[in-house]
């Protein structure tokens, strides 16, 4: 009997313990981002849906940000962290411009972002970042990060909800993985594709992700950064864009050194 009482008391303790409902300071707001570097341009894209669980919070929330005349940052993960992270990065870039009378170079922005992210190593920004733009030598570049600042320069990267859907496709189409040229033909060189091909791949990637992932859709924003002096007619020329797409040139943020940034928009399925 005593044993029985003891057991039931233990059982009671187990089942009647107050359910700890600790505050969770993080959330996943879905969406996906992607960037591809070209020889003299860089393309940074993201969808515009913001969701929480199965609910769409808004069909238009910005995930891709113009930082300088040669740098664009895409953020994905927890939207509140993303927005505040971008705010902090922009503030540091402004301080730099006041101190040095020039905009911060891309590779320095890349290192600064790693420092800011690692600075919160033990309460991280739950954000996956991709930085794209033009290096000082005029080449297109993409830097990708994890939430605590590990980073790497690459030719292309997808991140966010549909990363696993997009990355193997990009491996195949951008890095030519598992492809061999015909005997005697030129070898494939990654990071050398023409802008029109890259843009078509970006659009195909996002329509695929929209088709197969519930957190991706509503709208697509593609930022194109071009090296100074590069002809722009392959983007803004008559009939260069697929139907349903619009392009606008964005104003220079600094002195206007010659690099150009364009914003290409397109709608995505809303279901």
């Amino acid at each position, binding site marked *: 009997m005593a044993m029985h009482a003891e057991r039931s008391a233990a059982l009671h303790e187990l089942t009647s313990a107050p359910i700890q*409902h*600790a*505050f969770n*300071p*993080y*959330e996943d*707001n879905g969406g996906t981002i992607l960037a591809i570097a070209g020889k003299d341009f860089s393309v940074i894209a993201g969808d515009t849906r*913001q969701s*929480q669980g199965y*609910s769409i*919070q*808004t*069909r*238009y*929330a910005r995930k891709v940000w113009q930082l300088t005349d040669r740098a664009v940052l895409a953020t994905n993960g*927890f*939207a*509140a962290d993303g*927005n*505040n992270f971008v705010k902090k990065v922009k503030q*540091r870039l402004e*301080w*730099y411009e*006041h*101190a*040095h009378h020039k905009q911060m170079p891309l590779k320095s922005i890349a290192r600064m972002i790693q420092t800011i992210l690692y600075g919160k190593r033990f*309460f991280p920004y739950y954000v996956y970042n991709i930085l794209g733009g033009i290096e000082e030598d005029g080449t297109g570049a993409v830097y990708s990060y994890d939430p605590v600042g590990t980073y790497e320069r690459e030719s292309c990267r997808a991140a966010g909800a549909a990363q696993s859907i997009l990355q193997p496709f990009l491996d195949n189409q951008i890095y030519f993985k598992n492809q061999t040229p015909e005997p005697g033909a030129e070898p494939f060189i990654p990071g050398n594709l023409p802008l029109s091909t890259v843009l078509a791949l970006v659009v195909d990637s996002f329509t695929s992700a929209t088709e197969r992932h519930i957190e991706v859709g509503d709208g697509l924003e593609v930022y194109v950064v071009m090296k100074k002096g590069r002809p722009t007619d392959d983007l803004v020329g008559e009939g260069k864009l697929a139907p349903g797409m619009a392009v606008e040139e964005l104003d220079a943020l600094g002195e206007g050194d010659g690099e150009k940034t364009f914003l290409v928009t397109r709608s995505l399925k*809303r279901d």
Partner: protein
Amino acid sequence: MNQHPAMWGHPMTPHQAFNAHTAFPLATPNPMRNQHASSPVSHTQQPLVTGTSVLGLKYKDGVMLAADNLASYGSLARFRDIQRLHPLGNHTCLAVSGDMSDYQYLKKELDGLLREEEALSLSDSHPALHPSQIYAFLANLFYARRSKVNPIWNAILVGGWDATKEESFLGYVDLLGTTYSSPTLATGFGSHIAQPLLREAFEKKAGIDGKGELLTAEEAEALLNECMKVLFYRDARSLNKYQIATVTKEGVQISESKSAETQWGFAEALRGYGAQQQ
């Protein structure tokens, strides 16, 4: 900074210490670093007295917000005459759901801020805060508090009229510091029940891009009345006594409390639920 050996050991004046090339105040010591709290710090760990969902809608002349008058204590309908729509200045209005004590703290904080702003405007040509600025303040406050793991347990809609841009404003901010805007918004249960109805009615007239003609004041109010009724039918923490705030270029106007006309006749024939069987 002068590193010459002759200067070693000589403290610098503030003027000398100023470094024009410092881009980040890394060296500033944090005075709070070594202080210990004298008693355990208490945080809001869960909401206690709560208000249910609130709705917001952009229409032709501005923004409309709706909230019922109930503050619940768990499942108890504890306070049945609480106003959850709060005007801030002439062109901004809050609609607040979530913890009501945190809401009262927010009211006090924001009213204090607006009083200071008003004092400045009396002696100076100090411009009034725009809705977007109040919204930014709230977003920063909510994010700062969540980052201290001490959240303000609310989901808030900010409705307003931007007198400079001559356009309406509607934004959402919650305890995580998450922000977004959309022509129609709802918090909590309303985001499941009312938001689809709001979107459907909004897009039917304005189109999916929202570029068409918006709903008129009459249509918007009728839509909110309908949504509050549907919420009352299905949200167990709601009350059929609610208010609607309109924010236009004329200012903020908050209606008297009102009720939706409900129909319960169908319930007579229902059998098999609850205690009553057959």
